[in-house]
């Protein structure tokens, strides 16, 4: 069995499962945010429950339209707080504990190797970087799991991505996952697991691995997963909230396909509107002036991302007329970036630093686009109207490309500003 199959088997109380089977599994942790929790809560209310299956396993993160962008967003947050109080849910993250859910849960050691996590948010797949099964579901599935502690899942086939070679300068996890989505397409992994291995992906930091796992849903995948190694262990040391056991694939595991990737051939990439699979090397996109840059999100708002951006922006100025938003993904990342002097670099350069929020990524608030505007962003989706007006455009790229583009005022390779 693959790592994914092993985790599903253990949570189904079975010794063996195979792809295509539908199994009912126990859930170790379940998650919703300020957009998806209200619908889930409404459904739970219809069940008239005295108690949830286990309130300690429920996490709410208020991150999408927060700090509350309007009265209705505020009412939704209040509803979540009240529900949590009533059912004894302690893991409610906001304000001093604010953060974008998929950066926050790993940071707090709430998602651990070998576990099975579901979240009412499509990017829940991010946690697979820590060698666990995590997948996005909707609010009703979440409501069901809040009541029952279980969920049905179809065991996915696993696609394996073996990554070798030496990384070029300014190329990282974001470029790798864009490269893969470009190759297999936006439904190339529909209903499947994507497993990453090989010395090149294991050379990535945990932050880089989170970025890769985060965007597997952009290829339609159910989950993305990495093997456990010393870096995983080190990341979890002093963080893990529970003991965990490490899942390992069998030698004779079956993969529905194996993809060999030489990362040395990958250049800094950009995904053009309106699909994440619409990939071009940044050197080939031509001179595209931009109105806005976003450096943040559950994909690329972590410390390493801010480090790269600060390295490029040090002593430089954002092009006049360009709005560059920097959004640290959590309060802790914000504080650490401040201590390291990145915030001074960003502010001196003319960036706006926003509080941790999903904000503009999904066109919610904190920097949405007007008609005819173009943004380059470290976010994960460039669908029609994703960041605001339906006649605006989002180009997806790495923090390095975004930082360089902010300085140049058009989408450029980082080398062009150094």
């Amino acid at each position, binding site marked *: 069995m693959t790592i994914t199959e092993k985790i599903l088997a253990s949570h189904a109380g079975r010794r063996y499962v195979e792809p295509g089977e*539908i199994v009912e599994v126990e859930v170790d942790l379940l998650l919703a945010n300020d*957009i*998806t929790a*209200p*619908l889930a809560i*409404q*459904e739970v209310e*219809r*069940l008239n429950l005295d108690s949830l299956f286990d309130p300690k396993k429920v996490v709410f993160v208020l991150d*999408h*339209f927060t700090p509350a962008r*309007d009265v*209705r*967003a505020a009412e*939704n947050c209040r509803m979540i707080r009240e529900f949590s109080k009533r059912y004894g849910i302690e893991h409610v993250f906001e304000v001093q504990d604010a953060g974008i859910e998929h950066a926050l849960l790993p940071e707090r050691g709430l998602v651990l190797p070998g576990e099975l996590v579901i*979240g*009412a*948010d*499509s990017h*829940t797949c991010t946690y697979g970087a820590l060698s666990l099964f995590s997948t*996005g*579901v*909707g*609010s*009703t*599935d979440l*409501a*069901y799991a809040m*009541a*029952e502690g279980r969920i049905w899942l179809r065991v996915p086939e696993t696609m394996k991505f073996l990554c070798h070679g030496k990384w070029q300068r300014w190329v990282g996890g974001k470029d790798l996952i864009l490269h893969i989505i470009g190759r297999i397409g*936006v*439904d190339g992994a*529909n*209903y499947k697991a994507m497993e990453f291995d090989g010395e090149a992906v294991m050379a990535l930091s945990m932050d880089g691995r989170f970025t890769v796992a985060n965007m597997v*849903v952009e290829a*339609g995948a*159910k989950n993305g997963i990495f093997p456990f190694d010393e870096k995983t262990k080190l990341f979890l040391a002093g963080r893990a909230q529970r003991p965990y056991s490490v899942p390992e694939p069998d030698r004779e595991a079956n993969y529905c396909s194996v993809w060999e990737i030489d990362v040395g051939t990958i250049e800094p990439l950009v995904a053009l509107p309106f*699909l994440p699979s619409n990939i071009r090397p940044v050197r080939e996109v031509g001179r595209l002036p931009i109105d806005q840059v976003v450096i943040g999100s559950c994909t690329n708002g972590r410390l390493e991302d801010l480090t790269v951006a600060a390295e490029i922006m040090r002593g430089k100025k954002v092009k006049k007329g360009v709005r560059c938003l920097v959004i640290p993904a959590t309060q802790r990342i914000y504080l650490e970036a401040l201590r390291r002097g990145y915030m001074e670099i960003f502010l001196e350069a003319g960036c706006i630093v926003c509080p941790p929020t999903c904000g503009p990524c*999904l*066109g*919610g608030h904190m920097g*949405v686009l007007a008609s005819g505007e173009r943004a380059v962003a470290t976010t994960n*989706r460039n*669908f*029609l*109207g*994703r960041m605001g007006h*339906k006649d605006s455009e989002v180009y997806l790229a790495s923090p390095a490309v975004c930082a360089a583009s902010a300085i140049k005022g058009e989408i450029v390779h980082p080398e062009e500003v150094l």
Partner: protein
Amino acid sequence: MRFRGRVFKFGDNIDTDVIIPATYLSSTDPEELKRHCMEPIVPFFYEKVRQGDIIVAGSNFGCGSSREHAPYAIKAVGISIVIARSFARIFYRNAMNIGLPLLEADILHEVDGGSEIEVDLKEGKIAIGPRTFASRPPPPFMLEILGEGGLINYLRRKRVERV
């Protein structure tokens, strides 16, 4: 479960940001959500649809976010069933869970927009004029969830049975 309605055609990769833009997600009221359904590509879609009409689409329908507001909006508009070459997995679960029927079938190039078709979900059969197309119906437990009007109704019944 049989459906009869006029066809609205959509292409590949109809994502949830198009089905219901995120800025409207502060609401959970289907009547409000429906007014913005498909807004970026078909303004006033809700005024064009008659109760029972059918969406026919290409591959990867519903890709993107996990927002259940998307199937709620489609259902509230009056669409009785969505037929697509393939569905994104979260959307598939969400739609079935709230009682919006889906059928996987590759008929986009077999139908004209505005024409009337008939669907027998349980049999996986689609009648387009004199022609009939066969496809794989959803598994029995999913039909059962749909029959109950969604997953939570299904669970309510199960919990009563358990007691």
